[in-house]
């Protein structure tokens, strides 16, 4: 069941999508991808993923944040865990890195990591988020 989870990667970096896909598919996940927040929303509605890996900065500086808000405000997808990734703090000097659970809630995401992220670390985060989701669903 766990290995069949559907994961959506929303990122405008072709290489990141490719690497994420390769490592996640290697673990048996089904992976879909979108290159923009707009495409991302379409894929959320179409594929109803179990987890979303979301880049913060795409077309605009806060494209990812807008999409996470859209997802969390939607009844049907509100419980879908979101892992937000970004290299924004180092690129622009703007540090969005959340420090507390409160910060994560503000961003409407369940976990956060800066890029680049090692394939292994990404897999660990994905597994942890999916496990939490299963637990919370059982509750």
């Amino acid at each position: 069941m766990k290995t069949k989870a559907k994961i959506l990667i929303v990122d405008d970096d072709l290489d990141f999508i490719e690497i994420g896909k390769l490592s996640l598919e290697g673990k048996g996940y089904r992976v879909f991808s979108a290159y923009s927040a707009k495409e991302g929303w379409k894929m959320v509605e179409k594929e109803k993923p179990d987890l979303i890996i979301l880049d913060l900065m795409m077309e605009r500086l806060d494209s990812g944040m807008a999409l996470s808000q859209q997802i969390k405000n939607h009844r049907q997808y509100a419980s879908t865990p979101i892992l937000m990734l970004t290299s924004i703090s180092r690129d622009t000097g703007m540090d969005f890195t959340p420090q507390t659970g409160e910060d994560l809630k503000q961003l409407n995401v369940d976990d956060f990591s800066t890029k680049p992220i090692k394939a292994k670390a990404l897999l660990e985060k994905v597994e942890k988020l999916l496990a939490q989701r299963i637990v919370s669903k059982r509750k």
Partner: protein
Amino acid sequence: MIVDDEQPIRVACAKILSEEGALTETAENGLAGLEKAKENDFDLALVDLKMPQMDGMELLSHLTRLSPDMIKIVITGYATLDTAIEAVQKGAYDYIPKPFTPGELRTRVNRGLEKRSLQFEARKLREERERNLLELANEKNRTQTIIHCMGDGLLVTNRDKQVVFCNPAGRRLLKVKRPLPVGEPLGSVANDPEFIELVEGAMNLKEGHEMASKELAARTPSDPVLMANCAPVKDEKGQIIGAVTVLRDITELKELDKAKSTFVSMVAHELRAPLAAIEGYLDVILEGVGGNDPQKIHKILERSRERTRGLLALINDLLAISRMQAGRLAKEKEKLQLSILLKDVVELIKGEALERKVTVETLVPDDLPLVYVNREDITRVVTNLLDNAIKYNRDGGKVFIRASADDTFVRVEVQDTGIGIPKKDTGHLFDEFYRVKSKETRAITGTGLGLSIAKRIVEAHDGHVEVESKLHEGSTFRVLLPI
């Protein structure tokens, strides 16, 4: 000159003085003496007082007026105190009562001549001193003018940090609109505590230090950034009596510096992105997280190679930019027929066009006016434009390369039937590292430097580059090069 109405005296004196090496002339009365004095410049005259026609006293007056440097010695048989005083008042140097011995005459004459040369020496010195004073005044004037016209600010303060002098540039840089009275405290002129600290520091320098320097940040955005060099002013004994500060506006330098570091950080970002991707791909293979499907691994390696090539292209472009900046002035130019160059580039790029199923049509006349350009640079520009026209085209698309000329410019146009450029992006197209982000451009690799290099090159040739584009229909890049 010997003026006496007694012939024996004239002869005797002339003989005595000739033996001393003097050239002598004689006159038998005052009038004759005056005539001789008008014709010759005598060093010394012996004048008898009692003479017919013009007496000695009158002659003395005339001679004093005629040549003030002439030493006049009165020789007389009627010596009285009154005549002696009168003679001295009329310019006589000495007074010898007759009769006198030859030795007496020699001594008195020699003393007179000595006096004369001393007089000359004294005058020379006086004139020299006057000339020096004049030069000094001129020098002072010149120094003042130079300091007044200096582009850098000059500010002199005393031991108590009161302003003693400030040139106009100094007032401008410190934004002091009013004239500065001597003795104004430095604090009321420069309200930057760092400046005051600097001046204090310069008056208390450690052994071996000659100057203190500090960059003074702009206090408001309209203020200049200043570099202040401050050195102590010492008196002859080496006591510090104040400080002299030179202020230079380095705002432009700072801006250049900032632009440079922005560029460096952009370069770092552009270098990191592909390297991070390559590392990511290698991780997938080495850590085995992606499974070991040979086909997948091959795909990963291919993509990594593509990214590596992109990195190399980027580094080559960066080197081109740095070369351009280093050797901007010394580029070798030649008179060139662009039609040949254009056709050569098209020939070179045909393989790439074929691969993308794009046809290139060359509409270039053979007899374009010659342009004076660097061949390598212009080849680079044309190659870049054609490369883009093929890369950002659609399958089966077309590229037209045209050239024409008017009286002032040769015009080269590269038109494609590709994806076009959104309006919001056209303004940034020639910016370094600017790339249009869209679904279509996602998979196209590029350094983001090609067009910015092209623009630099064309502008270095006093030319102009522009773009027209319609989204989904295609773009036309136009280069104008002066004839």
